[in-house]
C-alpha cells in the first residue's frame, strides 16, 4: 500500500498541467476563473481542443477514443483541469450519453453518434425528470408510441439543463403502460430540431438560465434512435446515473474554490487586519481542506474497489461520494460567499452569465452569490442527498 503518487503519476500530472497551460484560451480561462458561465461556443471550442489532443473522452473505451488511463490518472487529469480554470468537457456528452451508447448501442449507432458526441458536433441535454417524476424517476409519463419505424413521443420534461443550447436530448420515455413502472421505459435520442419540440426557460435562484421545460408534442423519433432494447431503458438510466454521481463530487473544483477563498481573504479587511489572518477563517478553511483530502482518498479508494469488484458504476458506495462531494461543493461556495461579504450583494446575473456588461464592485466577488445559489441544487440533482441516503441504508446497510 502506498498512498503517495508514484513518480510516473507525478510526471503525468506535470504533462497534463503543461498541456492545459499552453492550450487553454485566455478568454475562457478568465471567465472560468471568475466563476462566470462559459458560453456554448466556449464549451464547444474547448472540447474540440481537447479532442484534437485525444483527451476529450478520456474515460471511454479506447476503441472509441478513450485513453485507457487508470482511476488515478483519470482523477489527476480532472483535478488539473479544474486547477487550471478550464471548463470541463461537456458532461452530458462525455459522462452521460457517450458511455451509454458505448455500452448498449449497436455498431451503427456507435459509429454515427460517438465521434459527434466526442467533438460536440451534437450538444446533448438530459431529458429524464418530469413534473411528477423527480426523485421517483420511474414514474415518468412521457409516452412513446410505436408507429412503423418511428416512435411518436408526447409529454413534458422539466429541469432539462441547457436544453436551450442543445441539438439533441437523450430521453427516457414510457413504451409500455402495462408493465411494472421500471419495466416499461425506453432510452431515446431525440433531435431537438424535430417538429413538436418546444423549449421554455425556467429561471433559477441565482438569476441564471440553466434549466428548461421541454414540451414534446407528437414528436417523430426514428426507432433507430433507440439505444438498447425496448423497455430496458431503466437499466441504462441506472448505469448512467452512477456515472453522474461519480462526477458530481467535483473535488478538484471544490479545491480550487477553497484556494481562491484563501487568496481573496488576504484582500479583505477584518478586525484591523485581513480576513486571511483571522483565526476563525483559517480554521474554517483548514477544516474544509481536511474533508476534501479525506474525500479525495475515499474517492480513489471507492472507484478502485468498484472497478475491481463490480466493474460498473452501479455500486451503492458511489452514493457516499455524491453525498459528501455535493456537501463540500456547497461548503466551499459558502466560504467564498463569506469572503465576498457585502461585495456579493449586487444582483448581476448578466455579468455572471458571461454577458459583455460592466461589473458593479470588484469582479472577484461578483459571482460568489450566483455560484453559491446555483450549487444549492447539487444536493438535489443527480438523485438528492436524501435519495442517496436511502440507497446506502437499503443496499449497503440492509436496513
Amino acid at each position, binding site marked *: 500500500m502506498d498512498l503517495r503518487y508514484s513518480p510516473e503519476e507525478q510526471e503525468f500530472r506535470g504533462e497534463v498541467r503543461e498541456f492545459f497551460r499552453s492550450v487553454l484560451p485566455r478568454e475562457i480561462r478568465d471567465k472560468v476563473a471568475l466563476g462566470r458561465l462559459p458560453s456554448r461556443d466556449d464549451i464547444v471550442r474547448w472540447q474540440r481542443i481537447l479532442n484534437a489532443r485525444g483527451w476529450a473522452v478520456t474515460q471511454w473505451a479506447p476503441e472509441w477514443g478513450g485513453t485507457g488511463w487508470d482511476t488515478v490518472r483519470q482523477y489527476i487529469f480532472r483535478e488539473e483541469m479544474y486547477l487550471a480554470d478550464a471548463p470541463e468537457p461537456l458532461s452530458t456528452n462525455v459522462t452521460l450519453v457517450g458511455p451509454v451508447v458505448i455500452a448498449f448501442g449497436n455498431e451503427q449507432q456507435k459509429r454515427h453518434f460517438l465521434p459527434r458526441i466526442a467533438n460536440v458536433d451534437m450538444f446533448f441535454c438530459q431529458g429524464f*425528470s418530469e413534473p*411528477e417524476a*423527480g*426523485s*421517483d424517476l420511474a*414514474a415518468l409519463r412521457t409516452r412513446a408510441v410505436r408507429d412503423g419505424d418511428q416512435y411518436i413521443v408526447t409529454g413534458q420534461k*422539466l*429541469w432539462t439543463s441547457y436544453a436551450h443550447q442543445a441539438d439533441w436530448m437523450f430521453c427516457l420515455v414510457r413504451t409500455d403502460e402495462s408493465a411494472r413502472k421500471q419495466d416499461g421505459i425506453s432510452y431515446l435520442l431525440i433531435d431537438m430540431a424535430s417538429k413538436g419540440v418546444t423549449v421554455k426557460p*425556467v*429561471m*433559477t*435562484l441565482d*438569476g441564471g438560465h440553466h*434549466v428548461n421545460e421541454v414540451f414534446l408534442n407528437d414528436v417523430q423519433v426514428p426507432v433507430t434512435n433507440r439505444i438498447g432494447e425496448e423497455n430496458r431503458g431503466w437499466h441504462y438510466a441506472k448505469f448512467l446515473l452512477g456515472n453522474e454521481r461519480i462526477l458530481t463530487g467535483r473535488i478538484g473544483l471544490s479545491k480550487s474554490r477553497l484556494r481562491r477563498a484563501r487568496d481573496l481573504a488576504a484582500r*479583505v*479587511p*477584518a*478586525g*484591523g487586519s485581513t480576513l486571511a489572518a*483571522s483565526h*476563525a*477563517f483559517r480554521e474554517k478553511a483548514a477544516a474544509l481542506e481536511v474533508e476534501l483530502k479525506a474525500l479525495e482518498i475515499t474517492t480513489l479508494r471507492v472507484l478502485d474497489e468498484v472497478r475491481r469488484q463490480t466493474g460498473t458504476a452501479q455500486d451503492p458506495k458511489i452514493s457516499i461520494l455524491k453525498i459528501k462531494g455535493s456537501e463540500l461543493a456547497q461548503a466551499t461556495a459558502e466560504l467564498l*460567499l*463569506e469572503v465576498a*461579504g*457585502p461585495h*456579493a*450583494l*449586487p*444582483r*448581476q446575473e448578466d455579468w455572471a452569465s458571461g454577458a459583455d456588461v460592466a461589473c*458593479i*464592485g470588484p469582479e472577484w466577488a461578483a459571482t460568489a*452569490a450566483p455560484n*453559491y*445559489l446555483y450549487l*444549492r*441544487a447539487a*444536493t*438535489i*440533482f443527480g438523485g*438528492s*442527498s*436524501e435519495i442517496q*441516503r436511502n440507497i446506502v441504508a437499503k443496499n449497503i446497510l440492509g436496513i
Partner: protein
Amino acid sequence: MDFSLNKEQTMIKDAVERLMHRHYTFAQRDTYARGAAGWSEAMWQRYSEVGLLGLFDSDVGGPVEAMIVMEAFGHSLVLEPFLAAVLLCGRAVQRAGGGSHAELLQDIAAGRLLMAFAHTEPSSRYELSRVATRATCKDRRWILSGAKSAIMHGDCARRLLVSARVAGEPADPSGIGLFLIDAGSAGVRRTGYTTQDGLRAADLVLDRVEVVAADVLGPPGAMFPLIQELADVAIAATAAEAVGAMQALHDMTVAYLKTRRQFGVAIGTFQALQHRCVDMLVELEQARSMALYAAMMASEPDARSRSAAMSAVKVQITKSSRYVAQQAIQLHGGIGMTTEYAASHYFLRLMAMQARFGDGAHHLNALASIDGREVLPAA
C-alpha cells in the same frame, strides 16, 4: 417577564398584517419589484396613513413596535425603504438633529421625504468605525470626498445621511461626523442597482460635495456612538424581519410536504423529512427568542452591553436563517430553485441579510473578544 403585546402594539400588528394581507401577495410584490422604483409608492402612502413612517420617534413607538412591523414585513418580503428611511435615518435625525430638523422629520413621517444612510464603504466591510470618506472644513462649509457602497435604497433617496471623517486614522471611532446632503448635489455620482434580495441600493462617489453648517448632524467628530446605535437598531430590525421570513418559509415547506407526492405518497410521510422540518422549527424558535431579546436590548443605554447583545442576536439569526433557508430549498427539491416560486425569494432575502450590518463570523468574533465567564447582558 411579560411576552404579551399591549393594546397599541396589538393594533399596530393588526394594521400591518391587514395591509400585507390585502396588498402584498407574492404576485403583487412581483409587480412592485418590476416597477421602475423596485417598490410601491402606493404602499408607502399606506404605511404613512397608518402611522408606520413615524416609528422612528420614541414617543410614537419603540423597539417592540419596530419588531412587530419588521416581522410582518419579513413575512411578506416587503420591498419599501422602511428600514433605511424611517428606522435608521429618521432616528438619526431625531437623535442628533435637535430642533432644527423638525421639518425633515415631519416630511419623513408623512412619506414625502426618502433618506438613506450612507455609511458603508468599498473597503470597510463590517467595521463600523472604518470610514475613509473625508470631510474638511472651509469657510464654515464642509467639503466631503470619498466613496460609499451598498447603500440600502440609496438609489431613490432624495437626501443622504453621510458619515465622513473629520480627524484621525481610517478605523478610529473618534473623528467621525454625520452630514446631510442632497442626492442631487454637485459632486455626487451614484450607481443604483438591485441587490440579491430584490431591494435597491446604490454605490456613491463623492467628489468635493459641499455641506452647509445647518446640515451637519451633531458635533462633527463625535458621531460614532450614534452610528453604532443605528447599526444596533438595524440588527434588531432585521432579526425580526428574518423571523417573519423564516416563519413564512417554514409554513410553505410544511404545506409543500403535505401536497407533493412521489413514490405514490406525500413526501411528508418520509420521516427523514419530518425530522428536518422539526429541526427547522427549533432553529426558528431560537431565532424568534433572540429577536425578542433584541427588542428588549435595543433601548439599553449602555452601548457596550447593547452591542454585545446585538452581536449575539446576529449570530443566532445568521445560524437559524442559514439552516432554515437551505433546508427549505432542499425539501422543496427543484421547485425551490426557481424564481417563479416564492421560496427562492425568501432564501435570497435571508442570504442578503447576512451581509448587512456584520455577518455571523464578524459578530461571533466580537463576542469572543469579550473576557468573562458570561459575556451577554441580561435582558
